[in-house]
């Protein structure tokens, strides 16, 4: 069954057209990540689904029902915000219970659900604290708890990890992944971080300038990008783009090669000069110059390469992508 269907959704603020003909279908239990550079409309799209913004045209269905006119609290959704957005005047227990109290649930239900959520998120010891007495990670867990207690049809996450430091971000990412497995709930997650997108998603929606660029599983998008934008956006370090005629085959298009698909080879096609070498221990990243174009090469293991060294690079068989001048993929 589909948990969420967007049909030709458009959104304008005055004369600014922010979302353009968005069509997305999300199946029940799926973890869908909206990803794109800042300003691509991904947060607006999420807020539209939440009902915090009206759609200008198009149809929005949650669990089969059209919800274009339904207020946010009646849509069966729960949202976790980037800034946590905890109520400063309520303690953790009441922060989580507020929505249920508003929905006039019985006292026992409320207590049971708060207990369940706080056990899942190990917040049991903090129930009587106020948000100002919690650390960043704990606040984010409370925000997630506030979503869980509602048993929503749809979880919405708006860049929930961007305010956390790197170590905590990784832990919380795992927690969210676990949560998704435990609850089996449908989740929609907005981020600009392609690592989060790749690690969490069942399905990624890549957005640019208010348009859907491509929808698919992380590996589909990685291995088979529809255009130059998607190819460049997913993967770290990012895909290299070079004029294809550097290979002297007279091809006028753009060649894309992922850094890990390049290898050192005596009779390689590309002649480059290394400019900077990053030794990461497990990997070695070489940033090199190829006839005035920057190219990144990712080698596994440790390699003794110096800046300024001349290298010849080969491209792994079947791992080159071609894009036309407009950025569309050529097969």
């Amino acid at each position, binding site marked *: 069954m589909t948990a969420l269907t967007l049909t030709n959704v458009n959104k304008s603020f005055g004369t600014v057209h922010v979302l353009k003909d968005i069509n997305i279908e999300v199946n029940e239990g799926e973890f869908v990540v909206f990803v794109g550079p800042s300003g691509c409309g991904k947060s607006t799209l999420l807020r539209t689904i939440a009902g*915090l913004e009206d759609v200008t045209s198009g149809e929005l269905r949650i669990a089969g029902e059209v919800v274009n006119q339904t207020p*946010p609290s009646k849509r069966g959704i729960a*949202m976790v*915000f980037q800034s946590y957005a905890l109520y*400063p005047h309520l303690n953790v227990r009441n922060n989580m219970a507020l*929505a249920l109290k508003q*929905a006039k649930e019985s006292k026992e239900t409320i207590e049971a659900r708060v207990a369940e959520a706080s056990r899942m998120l190990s917040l049991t010891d903090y129930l009587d604290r106020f948000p100002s007495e919690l650390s960043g990670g704990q606040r984010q867990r409370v925000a997630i708890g506030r979503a869980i207690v509602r048993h929503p049809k749809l979880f919405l996450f*708006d860049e929930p990890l961007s305010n956390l430091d790197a170590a905590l971000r990784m832990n919380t990412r795992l927690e969210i992944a676990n949560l998704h497995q435990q609850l089996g709930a449908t989740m929609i997650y907005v981020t600009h971080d392609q690592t989060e997108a790749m690690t969490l998603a069942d399905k990624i929606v890549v957005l640019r300038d208010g348009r859907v660029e491509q929808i698919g599983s992380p590996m589909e998008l990685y291995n088979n990008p529809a255009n130059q934008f998607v190819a460049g956006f997913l993967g770290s370090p990012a895909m290299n783009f070079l004029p294809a005629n550097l290979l002297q085959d007279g091809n006028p298009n753009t060649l894309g090669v992922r850094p890990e698909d390049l290898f050192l080879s005596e009779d390689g096609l590309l002649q480059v000069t290394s400019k900077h070498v990053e030794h990461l221990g497990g990997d070695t990243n070489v940033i090199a110059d190829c006839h005035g174009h920057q190219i990144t090469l990712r080698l596994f293991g440790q390699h003794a390469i110096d800046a300024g060294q001349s290298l010849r690079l080969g491209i792994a068989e079947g791992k080159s992508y071609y894009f036309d001048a407009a950025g569309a993929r050529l097969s």
Partner: protein
Amino acid sequence: MNSARANPINTFAMHGALILYTLIALFPVFVILINSFKTRKMIFREPLALPDAESFSMVGYQTVMKQGDFFLYFQNSFLVTVGSLTLILLFGAMAAFALSEYRFRGNMLMGLYLALGIMIPIRIGTVAILEMMVSTGLVNTLWALILVYTAQGLPLAVFILSEFMRQVSDDLKNAGRIDGLSEYTIFFKLVLPLVRPAMATVAVFNMIPIWNDLWFPLILAPAEETKTLTLGSQVFIGQFVTDWNAVLSALSLAILPVLVLYTIFSRQLIRGITSGAVK
């Protein structure tokens, strides 16, 4: 702690400046207070001397209590000030919330229109206001004063509060909407507590001019039963003879409630600032 603050010379200079300013600010109040307890002769002979056994006199306070209904004046002033402040803060905050939170046609124009009042002194309209009050039968009622002061205070209140409300996190309000809170609950429970310092500022800015005003009470509500404290004190100031004992005593009494209100609001102000800092 940074070195500039720890330096004893800097500390001394800073506290010295603050103490000096405090003395200058308190001096008139001090002179009023001490002289209100002295005999008329001693007020003029040695205005700066403290009251002693010889010069001590409560005659001013006795006059104030006897002549005119001082407690009624006091009550009137208090009702007018508190009433006006309540309405200014309530309507000012509501208008500011609407202007800062909702996108609607003419939002900008409405904001400008409401702010225009800051630039036009309300006293220019005195004659028209008086005519209006006469035709609505509000002359010589406290409502006349409350309405005029509310109108006078609203423009600045809307202006200041809408600036502060724009800074309240959108996420917080949206979280409330998703949790099913009504717009009123969001306004009263989430937004107002966060703009409390701004509310206290607006209250303090408006309170003193209203309490001290002589113009509108004199014109709109000069009747005995609606006299405010400032107007009531004027009976002791004559064209030829002024009962200084009574004037000074009345002023001393008038200062007290303002002090109390100010203390309440400034504590709110400080609490608001610190609660914002730890968040």
